[in-house]
C-alpha cells in the first residue's frame, strides 16, 4: 500500500496541552486570515485588527467600549453555558436564538401586565422567572418530541427559531405594542419602567443582572460538571453512550434536562436583554446571540471557565466590529464571517488534540 507523506496517529488519550492551546492558536490564525480578508476589502490589516481587538480595551474611547464588553458578553456566556452542557452529552440544541426570543417575550408580557404598578420587589422576580420559563418551555418542544417521538432535536430546535421570530413580529405589532406609541411597532420601554428595569449595577461597567446571572451560571456549571453525578452522566453520555446506558443513565431524562437548562438560560438572557440594554420588544429585537453562543461554547472547549473567556473574546469582536464599522467603514457582516472563520480554525486545529502528526511513515501495510 502507498504510504502517505503525512499521517495522523490517534493518541491514546486526548492531549491536555493541545486541548487548551488550540483555541489560542485558532484565534491567532483567525487574526491572520481575517487580516488578509480585510486587506482584500481594502482596509489596512494591521489597523483593522488593532481597531477590533486593541482599541476597544485600551484606545481613546475605551471608557465607552469597556462597558459594552460585559453587556455583550453576558447573554453570550449565559446561553453558551447551557449549550455546552448539552453539547457535551451529544444533545444538540441549536435553537437557542428562539428560546432567547421566547424568554424575552414571556418576561416582557408579565412585566407589562403589571404596568404601571410600582412594586419592584414582586414584579422583577416574577419577570425573571417568566423569562426563564418561556425559554424552558420553548426548549421542551424539541425535548419532548425527541424523547416521545424520536424526532431529531437539531432540526426541530432550529426550525422553531423561525416560528419564534414570527411570534416576535406578531407581539411587536399586536398584543404587546405600546398603546401610547403613536402606532409605531414595539412595546413599552421596560428599561424605563422602574418595576422591571434591569439597570446597570455599577455605572459605566455594563454590569447588569444578566451578567451576574452569567457568572452564577459559570460557577453552577463548573460545580455540576466536576462534583455532581449529573455532570458525570453528561460527560459519560457524550464520551461513551453505551457505557452510560450500562451505568444506568436515563438518556431521555438527560435530553430533557440538557434542553431544559439551556432553554431556561437562553430565556433568561433574552429577558435580561429586553428589560435592560434593548429595552423593548421590537421586530428586530434578536441579533443572533443564540447562534454566536454556539461558537462561544466550542471556543471555550465546552468548559465553564473556557466558555466565560470565549464569551468575553467574542463580545470583544462584536464591539470591535462596531468600532471598525464606525472608524474604518468595515461592513458589519465582516465580523460575522470572522466569527465563522474562528470556528473553522478551531475545528481544524482540534485534530492536534486527538491525533499526533507523523511525517514520512512506518512501513505498516
Amino acid at each position: 500500500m502507498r504510504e502517505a507523506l503525512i499521517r495522523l496517529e490517534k493518541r491514546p488519550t486526548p492531549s491536555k496541552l493541545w486541548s487548551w492551546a488550540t483555541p489560542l492558536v485558532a484565534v491567532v490564525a483567525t487574526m491572520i486570515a481575517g487580516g488578509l480578508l480585510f486587506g482584500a476589502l481594502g482596509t489596512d490589516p494591521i489597523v483593522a485588527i488593532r481597531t477590533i481587538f486593541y482599541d476597544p480595551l485600551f484606545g481613546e474611547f475605551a471608557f465607552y467600549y469597556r462597558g459594552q464588553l460585559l453587556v455583550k458578553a453576558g447573554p453570550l456566556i449565559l446561553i453558551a453555558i447551557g449549550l455546552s452542557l448539552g453539547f457535551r452529552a451529544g444533545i444538540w440544541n441549536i435553537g437557542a436564538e428562539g428560546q432567547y426570543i421566547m424568554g424575552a417575550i414571556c418576561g416582557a408580557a408579565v412585566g407589562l401586565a403589571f404596568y404601571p404598578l410600582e412594586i419592584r420587589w414582586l414584579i422583577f422576580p416574577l419577570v425573571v422567572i417568566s423569562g426563564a420559563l418561556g425559554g424552558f418551555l420553548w426548549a421542551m418542544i424539541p425535548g419532548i418530541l425527541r424523547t416521545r417521538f424520536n424526532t431529531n432535536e437539531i432540526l426541530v430546535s432550529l426550525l422553531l427559531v423561525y416560528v419564534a421570530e414570527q411570534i416576535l413580529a406578531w407581539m411587536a405589532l399586536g398584543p404587546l405594542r405600546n398603546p401610547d406609541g403613536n402606532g409605531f411597532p414595539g412595546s413599552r420601554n421596560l428599561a424605563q419602567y422602574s418595576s422591571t428595569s434591569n439597570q446597570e449595577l455599577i455605572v459605566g461597567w455594563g454590569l447588569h443582572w444578566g451578567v451576574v446571572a452569567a457568572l452564577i451560571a459559570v460557577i453552577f456549571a463548573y460545580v455540576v460538571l466536576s462534583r455532581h453525578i449529573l455532570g458525570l452522566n453528561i460527560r459519560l453520555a457524550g464520551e461513551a453512550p453505551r457505557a452510560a446506558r450500562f451505568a444506568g443513565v436515563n438518556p431521555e431524562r438527560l435530553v430533557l434536562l440538557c434542553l431544559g437548562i439551556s432553554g431556561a438560560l437562553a430565556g433568561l438572557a433574552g429577558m435580561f436583554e429586553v428589560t435592560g440594554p434593548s429595552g423593548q420588544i421590537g421586530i428586530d429585537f434578536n441579533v443572533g446571540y443564540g447562534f454566536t453562543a454556539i461558537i462561544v461554547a466550542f471556543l471555550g472547549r465546552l468548559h465553564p471557565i473556557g466558555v466565560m473567556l470565549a464569551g468575553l473574546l467574542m463580545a470583544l469582536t462584536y464591539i470591535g466590529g462596531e468600532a471598525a464599522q464606525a472608524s474604518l467603514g468595515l461592513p458589519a457582516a465582516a465580523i460575522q464571517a470572522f466569527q465563522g472563520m474562528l470556528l473553522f480554525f478551531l475545528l481544524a486545529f482540534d485534530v492536534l488534540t486527538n491525533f499526533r502528526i507523523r511525517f514520512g511513515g512506518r512501513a505498516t501495510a
Partner: protein
Amino acid sequence: MDFGSINPVLLIASLMVASTPILLAALGELVTEKSGVLNLGVEGMMIVGAISGFIVAVETGSPALGFVAAAFGAVVLSLIFGVLTQLLLSNQVATGLGLTLFGLGVSALMGQGYVGIRPPSSPRWEFFGLNELPVVGPILFNQHGVVYLSLGLVIGVWWYLRTTRSGLILRAVGESHEAAHALGYSVLGTRFAAIAFGGACAGIGGAFLSLVIVPQWTEGMTAGRGWIALAIVVFASWRPGRVLLGAYLFGGVTVLQLNLQAAGIAIPVELLSMSPYLITILVLVVISSDKRRAAALAPASLGRTFHASS
C-alpha cells in the same frame, strides 16, 4: 376575503417554482448523507450560492453563467467542510453549523454592493407553443430550465443510486465505511465527491431563489430553506422520489399561505408565515415516531468520523 382569486392551475405552477430550491438542496444532501456524511451547512451553501450566482449574473448579464457560478461558489464552501471533516476529522455536526454561520456572514459581505438591484431575468421555456395548452401548459411546459433540471435530477439520483456501480459503492461507503475501505474502495474520494455534489445542488437552489423567485438579493434570504431541506431528507427516508413529494408538499404550503395572505383571510399573517415551519416539524414527528423503522432507513455510518488505521 376572496378565494375566487386563487387559481388552482397557477397555484400548482407556482408551487413547483417555490419548491425547486428546497428540492435541489435536499437532493444534494440526500446524496451526501447516503455516503455517510451529515452536512448541516446546507443553509450556508445555499446562501453563498444565492449571492455568487446573483453577482455573476448581474455582472455578466447571463443567468446561465450565474447558475454555474452559484454551483462553483457553494462547492468551494462544501470543500471546506470536506477538508475539515474528512481530512482533519472534525465533528460533522459542529462543522456543519460552522459552515452555515460562516456562509451567512460571507454572503452578506459579498452582497454589500448588490442590494436593491434587479438581476437579468431568465426566460421560461415554451416548447414551441405547448405552453398554450390549457391546464398542463402552464404546469408542465412553461417553467424555468432549473425546474426541469431539478426534476431530471430526481430521476438521475434515483437511477444512479439504484443501478450504477458507482452508486452502489457510494451506498456501501455510507452503510459501513470500514467494510468499503477493506474492499479497497476510496472512502475519502467517494465522500468528497458526494459533499461537492451536495454543495453544487444547494448552490443552484440558492441561486434559483435570488435570480428567479424573489428576484433580488437580501441578507439571509434563504430564511431556513436549507434546514427544511435537511428535514425533508429525513422525511423522505433517504429516497429521491419522496424528496420530491416532501419538497412539493412544503412548496404547496408556502404558496398556499401566500395566496391566503393575499386573499385577506382572517388569520394573522405571522401565523400563516410560520405554517411551513410548523408543518415541517409535524411531518418530522410523524415520520420519526416509528423508532425501529427510522433507524433502519438511515445510512448506518451517517455522521460517523472515518479514520483509516491502515
